[in-house]
Every structure is written in C-alpha cells, then in structure tokens.
C-alpha cells in the first residue's frame, strides 16, 4: 500500500514538474514571440522612413532650407537652370535668365513665391515653374 502511495505521489510530482516546465517554457516562448513581433514592427517602421524622400506640400520654408543638404529634394536640371538652389539663388537665377518671368514672379504674394519655389524643389522643370508663375499671376 505504501509502495503504491509512493509510486502515485512520485508520478504526481513528475506530472506537476512537467506541467510547471511546460508552463514556464510556454510563458518564455510567448514573451519571446511578442518581443520579436515588436522588433519586427519597429524594423518595418524604420524601413518605411527611408521611403520618405520628398518634403510635404506646405512645409515651413525656413525649416526646409535649414534641413541637411542630403535631405534637400533635387531641383530641376537642364534648360539652363541650376539644380538645388536656395530661395535667394533661385530668385537671382530667375532674374538673370528669365527677366520677364522674374518680373511677374516679383509681383506675386510672398506665399505664392514660396509655393513656386517649393515646386522647383520638388523637381518641376523650369518650363513648369514659368507656367506656374504666369498662372498664379493671371489667377488661372
């Protein structure tokens, strides 16, 4: 009888020990899986930031100009117009190369001038920039 009890209690202890072990392993596994999931999510978020190349539509201009040069969007090349100019350089080059357009540009409100410059920064060609200036001047 006592031998049977000893065997039973031994089986019970083994059963509880294995239950505890599986519970512990399960907990550790779920924590690990959850942590790995979080890591994957963070990785995905960070990878996604690399896709953000262009600045927003209505970004504060001063801040845009303060941004690191590597982050600055490329301006248009070709058509005799330089790329990646600052606002002052852009206005100067416009005045030098397209005097007529520059006159209309100067008559635009400051905010509209900034919009034109942002279009240039976002890669619009000089023809597009000039068309935009005229459209804005003529309220088209």
């Amino acid at each position: 009888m006592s031998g049977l009890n000893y065997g039973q209690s031994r089986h019970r202890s083994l059963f509880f020990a294995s239950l505890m072990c599986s519970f512990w392993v399960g907990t550790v596994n779920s924590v690990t899986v959850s942590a790995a999931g979080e890591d994957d999510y963070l990785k995905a978020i960070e990878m996604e930031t690399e896709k953000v190349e262009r600045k927003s539509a209505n970004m504060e201009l001063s801040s845009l100009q303060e941004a690191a040069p590597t982050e600055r969007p490329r301006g248009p090349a070709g058509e005799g117009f330089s790329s990646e100019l600052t606002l002052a350089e852009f206005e100067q080059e416009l005045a030098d190369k397209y005097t007529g357009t520059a006159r209309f540009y100067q008559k635009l409100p400051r905010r509209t001038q900034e919009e034109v410059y942002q279009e240039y920064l976002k890669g619009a060609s000089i023809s597009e920039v000039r068309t935009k200036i005229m459209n804005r001047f003529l309220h088209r």
Partner: protein
Amino acid sequence: MKSISRLLIIFLLLFLGGAVLAAETEEELKIGEADSVIPLYEGKPYLHVIHQGRSVKVERVQDPDYELRGYFAKTSRKCPPFCLKRMEVDPRVPSVGEIEVFDFMENQLRDGTGLIIDARTPSWYEKGTIPGSINIPFTILSKSVDDLEMIEQLELFGAKPREDTGALTQKLEEWGIVDATNKTDKWDFSNCKELLLWCNGPSCGQSPRAIEGLLEVGYPPEKLKYYRGGMQIWQLFGLTTIVPEG
C-alpha cells in the same frame, strides 16, 4: 486748328477711358485675390501656433492645382503591419478630424492645458511634423507604469505620483467615501493635461499603441484624443508641416 483740338479731345477721352479700365481691372484682380484664399475651413483663413518657441502660421496650400506627391500620396502600404485601422482606438477615446485639431491648437495647446503628441519614432518626426507637436514615441508610451521613461512622461503630462496611500484610504476610495476619480494606486491624474495623439495616418499603428499604453497606466480616457488622419490626411489637405530644429 479745329482738327487739332478735336484730335486732342479724342486722345484725352481715350486716355481717360483706358485709365478707368485699368483701375477696374486692378480692382477685379484684387477681388479675385481675396476670393482665391483657400481657408483652413469656412471663415478661418489660417491660425498661428507656437512650435519650439516660435510662431508658425498654419494654412493650406493656396494653389488649387497643387497635387500631393511623394510618400504620403501613396495609396497602399504593406499589410501587415501597415493595415487600415478602425476609426476608434477605444470607445472611450474620441477620434477627431482636422477642425478639432485646429480648435485644440487654439484652445488647449495655447492655454497650456493640452499637448499635441507626435507618437511616431524620432526618425519620422525629424522628417517633418505638425506644428505645435512634441515627439513622444509610442515605444515610450507603451512602457509599464514603473518604467522611468513612462514616469517622466506622466509627470510632464501633469499627473502626480501618489504617496503610499495606505490601506484605510484605499478602502475608503473603494467604498466611494473618498473621491477616487482619475486616481490609481500610484498616480493622481486629476489635473493632467488633455493629449491629442497622432501618427502617420489611418494605416499607422503608432499612436493607437501609445493610446493603449496610456490607458493601461490609468490615464483618463476623456483626456485623450486620437487624430486618425495623421500626417497623410494633414498633407493631403495641403496643411503646413514643419521640420523640427535640433
């Protein structure tokens, strides 16, 4: 002599007519300019908000032909993890739109009773944010109530750590004899600020996680707001964004 004077009169009339026409055209242009302002919403052309100590004008792109380009013009993102989120993070936390964000900027933010939180990771924030926002990433706002970073943020939000409340106080609060509204064992949220949280838009899970984290530590849901549109819808409407300094 007569013909010369006639010519002079004709010339004078033509000149006056031209001047009147020019004045009218100028007037029309002025009216056109005033009419062409695209306001934030009807009757509200723009507003100013303080961002990193300086005033920033929040307005919409004034060019009706402007089309959004770049990342935030994308229609789809990989799902998971960037799946569309429900309108509400939690039924107790109101989701808000752009006009409510403007109101929040002009009221709670201005009088210091509220904060706008860009809950994205710093690398997102650095690329541009909504003016008036501070960056507190969801990774911090998802931490446990005992975590030092979470404690710092809760103090910033105006929550007060509670001293050892004692068994008697706890019982009295439990029975409703002592007011325990907006209080947990560890924090008193009675005077905490209203928080408006946002991230990249309807398919972004960063601010929902931050809201869930704050609710988890006992932040009162009525003091939280969720701007689901986030950066994507903000930019879609051509609203001002800013690249933070430093």
